[in-house]
């Protein structure tokens, strides 16, 4: 059977002592940094990305996947123990997880989160193995117009997820696209917006952008508010869920996995939407012993499973189409491009080892997560009790060294500082950085495909809607846009975000 043969290729590629070692280190370091307050997966990956540059492509992606899962789990740890979600997708976990921790069941919540993540990860790995090859078949037929339409859909999707008003999020997308045009023109190689600086000839370094917007900007806000917050941790006693706990989390985990697997594939979707959706479904469906919002174990299990399944299946558009579904995937694509690999439908055919190796390593990463985290929870707890004023200079230092080592250039440090300042101002204005970063990554691809599509049609814009696939994708984008604008859904969306706040 194809599935098994493919997974065998993957196990062959991924299960080498070297790869396992890097996967292990990735999970460990990812959790370590993700568990630091205020650092989500994007900042964590941006910070650790340079370490992987020297590795072979499969190994580096495996390590990055490990870092990603680790960072996500680390974010859930802070959400549960100190009610400080490191990233938006664990916002939901904090609702019931922190309440469980206050009742002395923080250990159980952490264990449930790890178990839910592992089950979801296992199922989602199989989903990827089943869905990716047929999708890559479709993707090979994509021309520039279809790619353009798909990216429009992805960018529109990212507006849905941006907390806050629609129009500013749209502005952030346009700004991101604009920043993406800095550097050499794709056709004539004429420099654009580089101000004569040779450092900008290849465009703005995107590690610096992500690090500045997500890491530094957040830090400036946190330094003022988080003084002494590290100490408020409850004691973590028992980790083992009781038998009745186990019985109660089976269905939520499976429902969460199903929701997460589907939503993760959508461009612009991914983990955060999945955890929101899973939580609201549980609220309607599950008969919990305790009301939701006051420590319901189902309220931890379902969104954590959804979150992880979504994180996993968001690799599908990345690997088969070369299109990032979220900023994390954008970073992964950046890493691949630095390795000299252009992600897209050809990867599956030309580099099956890489493709299946990554799929399998996701599952291995999840397994490590369980093995590693349950015994190490005590350590993460201790880490959280370090006061923030001792942590943030260290985080900042590692960010600076990370940004510098991308290309051994001090220019990248000026960019980190600059984008840190810009990101801070934007966050105070109420603008989310995620749409900007996604647009920044998609910008060059979008321009390239738009230009090629219009060149083929000699400037006739109807070429963009000439095939059923591109029409379908653009209609989907329009529907999403209309849905956001329509007042009924807008108020529902506001409510969802308020509940989480």
């Amino acid at each position, binding site marked *: 059977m194809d599935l098994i043969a493919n997974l065998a290729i993957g196990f062959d590629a991924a299960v080498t002592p070297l790869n396992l070692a890097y996967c292990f280190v990735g999970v460990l370091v990812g959790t370590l940094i993700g568990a630091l307050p205020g650092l989500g997966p994007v900042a964590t990956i941006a910070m650790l990305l340079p*370490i992987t540059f020297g590795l072979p492509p499969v190994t580096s992606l495996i390590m990055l996947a490990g870092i990603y899962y680790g960072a996500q789990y680390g974010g859930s740890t802070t959400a549960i123990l100190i009610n400080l979600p490191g990233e938006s997708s664990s916002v939901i976990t904090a609702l019931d997880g922190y309440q469980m921790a206050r009742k002395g069941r923080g250990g159980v919540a952490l264990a449930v989160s790890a178990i839910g993540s592992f089950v979801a990860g296992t199922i989602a790995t199989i989903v990827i193995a089943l869905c990716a090859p047929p999708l890559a078949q479709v993707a090979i037929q994509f021309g520039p117009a279809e790619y353009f339409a798909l990216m429009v859909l992805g960018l529109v999707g990212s507006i849905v997820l941006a907390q806050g*008003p629609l*129009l*500013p999020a*749209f*502005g952030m997308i*346009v*700004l991101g*696209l*604009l920043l993406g*045009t800095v550097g050499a*023109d794709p056709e*004539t190689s*004429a420099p*654009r*917006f580089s101000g004569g600086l040779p450092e900008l000839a290849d465009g703005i370094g995107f590690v610096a952008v992500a690090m500045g917007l997500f890491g*530094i900007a957040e830090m*400036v*806000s946190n*330094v*003022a508010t988080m*003084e*002494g917050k590290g100490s408020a941790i409850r004691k973590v006693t028992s980790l083992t869920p009781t038998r009745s706990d186990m019985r109660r989390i089976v269905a939520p985990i499976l429902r969460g996995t199903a929701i997460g697997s589907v939503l993760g594939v959508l461009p612009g979707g991914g983990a955060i939407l999945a955890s929101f959706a899973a939580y609201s479904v549980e609220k309607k469906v599950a008969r919990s012993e305790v009301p939701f919002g006051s420590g319901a174990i189902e309220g931890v299990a379902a969104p954590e499973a959804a979150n992880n399944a979504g994180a996993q299946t968001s690799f599908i558009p990345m690997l088969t189409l070369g299109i990032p579904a979220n900023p994390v995937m954008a970073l992964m694509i950046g890493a691949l491009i630095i390795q000299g690999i252009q992600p897209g439908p050809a990867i599956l055919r030309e580099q099956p080892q890489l493709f299946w190796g990554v799929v399998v390593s996701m599952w291995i990463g999840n397994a490590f997560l369980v093995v590693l985290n349950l015994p190490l929870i005590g350590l993460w707890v201790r880490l959280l009790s370090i*006061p*923030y*004023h*001792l942590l*943030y*200079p*260290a985080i*900042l*230092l590692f*960010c*600076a*060294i990370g940004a*510098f*080592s991308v290309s*051994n250039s*001090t220019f990248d*440090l*000026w960019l*980190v*500082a*600059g984008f*840190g*300042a810009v990101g*801070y*101002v934007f966050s*105070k*204005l*109420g*603008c989310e950085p995620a749409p900007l970063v996604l647009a920044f990554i998609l910008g060059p691809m979008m*321009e390239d495909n*738009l*230009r090629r599509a219009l*060149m083929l*049609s*000699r*400037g006739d*814009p109807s070429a963009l809607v000439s095939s059923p696939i591109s029409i379908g994708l653009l209609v989907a984008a329009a529907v999403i846009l209309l849905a956001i604008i329509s007042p009924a859904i807008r108020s529902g969306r506001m409510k969802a975000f308020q509940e989480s706040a």
Partner: protein
Amino acid sequence: MRALNVKRLWMGFVFVAIGAAFFAVARNYPMGTAGRMGPGYFPAMLAMLLMVVGALVSLQSVLTAPEPMERLDIARLLLICGSVVVFGLLVRTAGIALAAMALVLVSALASRAFDLRWAIPLAVALAAVCALVFVRLLGLPVPVLPPFAY
């Protein structure tokens, strides 16, 4: 007079300003036509779109519920971003040890709990870790100490 959504007003202003700046530069690039776009075509379109969006956003400041501007913590922002710049200025010449210590000390000043009694040991410890891990183990091509220290 009705209170404005000041946040939205500034946001729109920032968008218009950035759009205008990009447009001013992009119009010097060859535009080409839709069928054969030059380097300036796509950016110029985006810059104009950004200005339009910015104008609409500032218009929203009248139409939406009033929101005051949040206070910008300029001092902390300068200390934290500045410490990265200081690191960049020092790392190639003075070496990673001094650069790391400078970054830690400058950024630590942003903390309300700042005290040399913890800041100096932290700076020294982190500098030692960085020199060992990044330069000795990972081979980052920068000096550990300034040249005259040898």
